[in-house]
């Protein structure tokens, strides 16, 4: 049982480049989330999904896109990377929203130069 798997763990992008952060969970959780964590700012919700085919914006969605074609996968897309997107990104999942806590991936450290 792998839980929530995120790839890659580290990435350096040039301004204007695009990339996809992958997130997969094998717990059959309905809810999946993408957060970014900036120093001193805690975790901010980017996008979330309540099930396959359904996504919604969180607090800081600008510059990102997501899709949820399957229950297991919830990739996060950065189309035109900007230095402001330098952060640590965490994917999480839960069976019900907030119930029994979230299961988090190990994070992706992204630097945009």
């Amino acid at each position, binding site marked *: 049982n792998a839980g929530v798997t995120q790839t890659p763990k580290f990435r350096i992008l040039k301004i204007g480049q695009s990339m996809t952060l992958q997130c997969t969970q094998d717990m059959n959780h309905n809810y999946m989330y993408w957060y970014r964590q900036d120093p001193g700012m*805690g975790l901010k919700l980017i996008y979330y999904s309540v099930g396959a085919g359904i996504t919604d914006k969180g607090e800081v969605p600008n510059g990102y896109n997501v899709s949820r074609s399957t229950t297991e996968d919830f990739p996060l897309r950065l189309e035109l990377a900007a230095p402001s997107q330098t952060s640590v990104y965490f994917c*999480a999942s839960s069976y019900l929203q907030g119930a029994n806590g979230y299961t988090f*991936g190990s994070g992706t450290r992204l630097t945009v130069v």
Partner: protein
Amino acid sequence: SQELEQSPQSLIVQEGKNLTINCTSSKTLYGLYWYKQKYGEGLIFLMMLQKGGEEKSHEKITAKLDEKKQQSSLHITASQPSHAGIYLCGADITGNQFYFGTGTSLTVIP
């Protein structure tokens, strides 16, 4: 504005000392969660509190949700270097979105 305020922002304690971290909301909390994050790693779920006055313990960590359900405290007894990391509270405040606190960085000096 931050929905959940944590205090202190950082804490440095000598091994063996007790410490308390607070998490405060201006609104009623529909479930309060505590997580621990080791530096550079993902978050680990510690415990969840739902009822006003509820208190839970896990090893040397105790968390309590106050009666009005707007504040929670996390208390560590006889701290050890293994307790070092970032502690985050999380809560469903509005009923449909989950928020995290700003985090408390804990350093335990051997």
